[in-house]
């Protein structure tokens, strides 16, 4: 099962992620995240006093603003905003700062495939930089499924268009603290195998989806190690091949 990718990667290989924290000086936290030519800038402002209308004042409110590279915000961007908001709500500890709003602004610098996963990773890194309390980090990954049933990870824009289906998957990263044997297992599976977010496009068989999940999980472990190494480094450019 040999597949040629235009950039010579093997199917399981991600484009090397690069991330720099604290790139914006006015924001409380910021990060720039790139995977190949896809690049996203995320800024965090907050927590600010008060919540928006229709939000629970007993919890912290998270607001996501998506800025496309060019043009007006459309339906697709609204959907990305909603997915990002719900995903970040599930990893932040919202009860620590009740009745506050944290704004996350996502600026797309360049889109070359796997845009939403890239934005989720960027937002996560920016939240770490801003010191917002979180339960765990989220690791996002894009899996593509070709007609013949093989799975490609982290596709470029060109590959994304050629594929019959793709899935954006977000997993929690594994907890490193020492836990008693077996306590990190939920329903017989390790905690970092749970799905925070799943968005799919295109029809695939159920087995293919589980195949994507498996491959995504395996690759997310590497990406989560990279994310974990971020805060310990000094501000500046950090780049590492995964």
């Amino acid at each position, binding site marked *: 099962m040999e597949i040629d990718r235009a950039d010579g990667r093997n199917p399981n290989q991600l484009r090397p992620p690069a991330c720099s924290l604290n790139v914006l000086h006015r924001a409380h936290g910021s990060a720039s995240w790139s995977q190949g030519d896809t690049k996203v800038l995320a800024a965090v402002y907050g927590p600010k006093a008060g919540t928006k209308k*229709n939000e629970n004042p*007993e919890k912290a409110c998270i607001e996501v603003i998506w800025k496309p590279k060019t043009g007006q915000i459309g*339906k*697709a961007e*609204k*959907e990305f905003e*909603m*997915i990002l*908001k*719900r*995903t*970040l*709500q*599930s990893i932040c500890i919202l009860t620590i700062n009740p009745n506050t709003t944290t704004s996350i602004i996502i600026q797309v610098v360049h889109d070359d495939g796997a845009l939403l996963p890239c934005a989720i990773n960027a937002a996560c890194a920016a939240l770490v930089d801003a010191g917002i309390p979180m339960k765990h980090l989220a690791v996002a990954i894009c899996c593509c499924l070709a007609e013949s049933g093989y799975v490609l990870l982290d596709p470029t824009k060109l590959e994304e268009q050629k594929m019959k*289906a793709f*899935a954006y998957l*977000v997993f*929690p990263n594994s907890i490193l603290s020492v836990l008693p044997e077996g306590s990190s297992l*939920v*329903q*017989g*599976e390790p*905690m970092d*195998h*749970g*799905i*925070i*977010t*799943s*968005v*799919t*496009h*295109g*029809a*695939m*068989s*159920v087995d*293919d*989806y*589980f195949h994507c*999940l498996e491959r995504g999980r395996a690759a997310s472990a590497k990406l989560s190690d990279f994310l974990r190494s971020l805060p310990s480094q000094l501000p500046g450019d950090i780049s590492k091949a995964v």
Partner: protein
Amino acid sequence: MGLPNASEDLSAEMEVDAFRRLFPLRYFERHLSESIRPDARPLGRARDTTISLGAVASADGSALAKIGSTTMLAAIKMEVMTPSLESPDEGCVSIDFHMPPICSPIVRPGRPAEAAPVVAKQLSDTILSSGMINLKELSLVSGKAAWMAYLDIYCLDADGALFDAALLSAVAAFSHLQIPVVSLDYDGKIVMVTEEQKEENLENQPVNKDKRKLTLSSIPFSLTCILHKNYILADPTAEEESIMETLVTLVLDSSCQLVSLYKPGGPVLAYTSAVQDCIALTRQRVKELQDILDEAISGMEID
């Protein structure tokens, strides 16, 4: 929620309605532990579903779908357009979803609902990627004229599982769709053929005499589930959605292909076993919905 033990003690002496409002989560969990929901449904059971076709007489295809009290009205208007250069022999489908203020107390007049564009995007992704509609069938004259189908879905009552009801109404409207008859005039333009002209039997032959219905292959159906602790609740109401926040929407088509598995965040993580249980529930629901749709269509043909 700061005093979980206080609610335990109070539950014995408080009125049920007061308890439901003050401790909604506890109220639901009490029911769930008995494997029942406050509206007397078992956990995996969806609400009663009805479809009525042809609800809007002025549209080319329409349907009213109800799941419990969630009500969706879908209508399709067909218009002739010039196809794009990239796909000269394909028509187009444009889908919009509206949430007017009557549908829910959360939607205020003048301010568009946040959920509406998201549901619209999800709907058009699902309908187009499922391959239910063959866009080539919407072509009239290759490179010159094709159909543009405007599908508008109005939410009349938003009581949970909006996407499920919207998709069901959209599918029903497409199966009710009657494409209008058109013919070419002397200048090579497309004109509508009216009722009188049909009888006059004019020399201009209709372009699409025998192509008045779309063939729908692999129809998608969806089921939204709530994940809460180890429980899986199928087809939630608006109240359930506001209390337990982890929603998973699955779309399967009639040949059991997975069209979409949509889980936007939520505090509960979905593990493989939970996903498999949701898929099993959805499989069951697809059969149910298929029967309901078939019944509605055969009822139409008798009339």
